[in-house]
């Protein structure tokens, strides 16, 4: 019958209207500045740079590889490489960004920079109250304002931070094992060197041994090195992304 | 001559003149509504309440909107290229002036020749809607039915004339 749907609709809104006075949990909104709804874990607003340890400049993971700068669709990241190097978490000497600016008035929170970063150096923040009086300078965050500690990262994205830390710890363990193996091999080679004058007739064996020992070391070093050193696009890339 | 009469006369004549002389056609239509409003106030001034409200309802409510719709449908709101007045506008003006001279003379002559009723009005008749209803249903029932027929015919006719021809439209 014509008009039935209208009556049903009106009844529904009437129930909603009356219900909102009776049961409080119908009201989904909160009084914003005073009460807040905890953001869900996957919330993402603007990127920030992660650093380990206390000193933000020394512990910063970013190595100014500029992949995120190239990949950023709205081109809101600007990186200037440093001239000198500083040791990174794995102790390897790395370049660091002398200047790392993100224009959050341009950034569209697409999280592509986080996905392409091979060093887990940039993550998405959940901070959204970023209003500034000066619309250009105020919204251009420099390196100092972007750097936030790993603990902060654990606080806002607990599970994701745990995974990242686990993977980094794994890599560190692997590179430590490799380093230990390298030192052991060097020590063994040094021990083998004084024995060489005594055992001149057996050079072929030592040739084979160093080749063998360097070959495995080579293969060991390659994945670890790539992880820590300058990343080259290709298999290593695939592995760290997974 | 009471002040009200002069005011209304000025309003109506100004509206009429503007409706005829303005360049932009939509402004003419709006000036026309001012003339209609002036006339409606004249009717109220002459204690013809029903006619005054009917005039507002029919003219300002419907005819003015109709004229404005017609202007927009025929792209009349852009100022025409070749002048607003037709070629032989002078002859038209002369004829109109002549007509006004004749009418004015006739009115003034009649006032001089027929004193008495022409001058002062009779007592204000208490015209109630009930009397109008009785008159419409009594003496004027035939014109009422004919006007009803005419309005229906005009309604259907106007729609058919202005309707969009489906087949064979150029």
């Amino acid at each position, binding site marked *: 019958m*014509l008009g039935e749907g209208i009556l049903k609709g009106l009844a529904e809104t009437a129930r*909603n209207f009356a219900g909102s006075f009776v049961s409080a949990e119908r009201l989904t909104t909160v009084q914003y500045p005073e009460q807040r709804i905890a953001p869900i874990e996957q919330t993402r607003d603007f990127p920030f740079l992660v650093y380990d340890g206390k000193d933000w400049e020394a512990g910063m993971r970013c190595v100014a590889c500029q992949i995120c700068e190239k990949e950023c669709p709205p081109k809101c990241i600007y990186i200037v490489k440093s001239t000198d190097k500083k040791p990174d978490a794995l102790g390897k000497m790395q370049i660091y960004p002398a200047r790392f600016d993100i224009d959050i008035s341009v950034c569209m929170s697409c999280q592509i920079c986080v996905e392409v970063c091979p060093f887990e150096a940039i993550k998405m923040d959940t901070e959204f109250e970023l209003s500034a009086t000066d619309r250009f300078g105020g919204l251009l965050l420099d390196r100092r304002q972007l750097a936030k500690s790993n603990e902060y990262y654990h606080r806002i994205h607990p599970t994701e931070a745990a995974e990242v830390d686990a993977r980094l710890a794994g890599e560190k363990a692997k590179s430590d094992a490799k380093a230990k193996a390298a030192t052991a091999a060097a020590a063994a080679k040094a021990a083998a060197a004084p024995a060489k004058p005594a055992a001149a007739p057996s050079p072929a064996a030592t040739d084979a041994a160093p080749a063998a020992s360097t070959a495995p070391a080579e293969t060991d070093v390659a994945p670890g090195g790539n992880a820590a050193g300058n990343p080259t696009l290709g298999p290593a890339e695939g592995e760290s992304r997974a | 001559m009471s002040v009200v009469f002069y005011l209304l006369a000025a309003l109506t004549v100004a509206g009429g003149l503007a409706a005829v002389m303005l360049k932009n056609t939509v402004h003419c239509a709006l000036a026309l*509504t001012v003339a209609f409003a002036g006339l409606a106030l004249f009717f109220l001034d002459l204690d013809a309440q*029903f006619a005054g*409200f009917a005039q507002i309802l029919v003219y300002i409510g*419907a005819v*003015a909107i109709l004229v404005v719709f017609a202007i927009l449908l025929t792209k009349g709101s852009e100022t025409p290229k070749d002048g607003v007045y037709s070629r032989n506008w002078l002859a038209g003006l002369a004829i109109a002036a002549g007509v006004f001279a004749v009418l004015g003379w006739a009115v003034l002559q009649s006032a001089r020749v027929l004193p008495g009723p022409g001058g002062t009005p009779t007592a204000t008749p208490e015209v109630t809607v009930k009397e109008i209803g009785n008159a419409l249903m009594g003496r004027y029932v035939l014109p009422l039915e004919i006007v009803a027929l005419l309005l229906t015919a005009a309604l259907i006719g106007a729609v058919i004339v202005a309707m969009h021809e489906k087949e064979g439209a150029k």
Partner: protein
Amino acid sequence: MSEKADQIFVLLQHWLVSLLPAGWQQPGGVVLAVLVIICLFPALFALAVWMERKGLGRIQNRLGPNRVGPFGLLQPIADGIKSLTKEDIVPRSADAAVHFLAPVVLVVTVFMGFAVLPMGRNMVLADMDAGLLFYFAMGASTELAVFMAGWSSRNKYSLLGAMRAVAQMISYEVVLLLSSVAVVMMSGSLSLTRIVEAQNHYSWGLPHWYIFTPWGCAGFVMYAIAATAETNRSPFDLPEGESELVAGYHTEYSGFKFALFFLGEYLAMFSISGLGTTLFLGGWSAPFSWLGWVPSWIWFFAKLMLSIFVFIWMRGTLPRLRQDQLMNFAWKFVLPMCLLNLLVAGLWRFMGDGWPRWVVCSAILVLAYVGMGWGEMRRKHFGARSYRYAE
């Protein structure tokens, strides 16, 4: 005592007017009444804006404004100040004179509609013999103001919005007139005070309001539909369809002129629901005979606020109608029902008292409603949309 409370405002007016010198008494009384209307209804407008925002909020499971003042009561005043202080931008290509005149004409004609509404026992500004015709005459000239607004802004969207608004208002004004003609036929007079007096009798405590008769109920439903469309509200607010027409005919208005349009829309809502209560809900007459001691003007404003709430309720519920659905509905469903309602009212009048006329009239109306409704729904094949392109 209740008699004095009922006539409190009339006595107040007489007392104030008596202070004036003799010659000025009559015009002074009228000016006083006009001043009251001009102050009262914008205040009610502020209350209605507050009711609308809180009501819509509650319907949508949220609180609605509660920051400015207790329960957000000062929110309309804050909106008013905001719109007063906002910059009033007039587009360069706009037609300045007509652009300025449009909101003025709209608000003036809507205010003049209040002159004939009886807000309480002998509390009417101008008790005209053809009061209803005066009201519709004023209602008809608001369309012109809408067109002036749309055309003078020289903006495609506002012209489109104005054309849609005027087309809609004209087709639903016919329905508005016809549904109130049935009331005029039964009460025998165009004067609104006599219409209210005709409804002011009681049998077994129940009032003789016209809504409690079959033709009156059908007439009221159609009047409500036409009233919503006439004021561009809720399901018929296509002219201000924010999504596709930005803000319809008042797109190019800002600051105080936009506030005037906003005021005009709400005043139109007030005056049309005021007329609705006068025609169908018995104006200022009490709902039950034993409630007669309550002052009459309280009933008028209670019914007014109730109909405003129904407007808000419909706005919170119903989706917007497309232009062709809206026009088809007016010309193909509501208008025939109105004409039939006139016949049924005539039948009601000449069948004399008794239950048979109740049965016959309601049967005809229900049958017509279900028949046309069924016919309408059956042909409605909700298949793929067909498009007609203008040549």
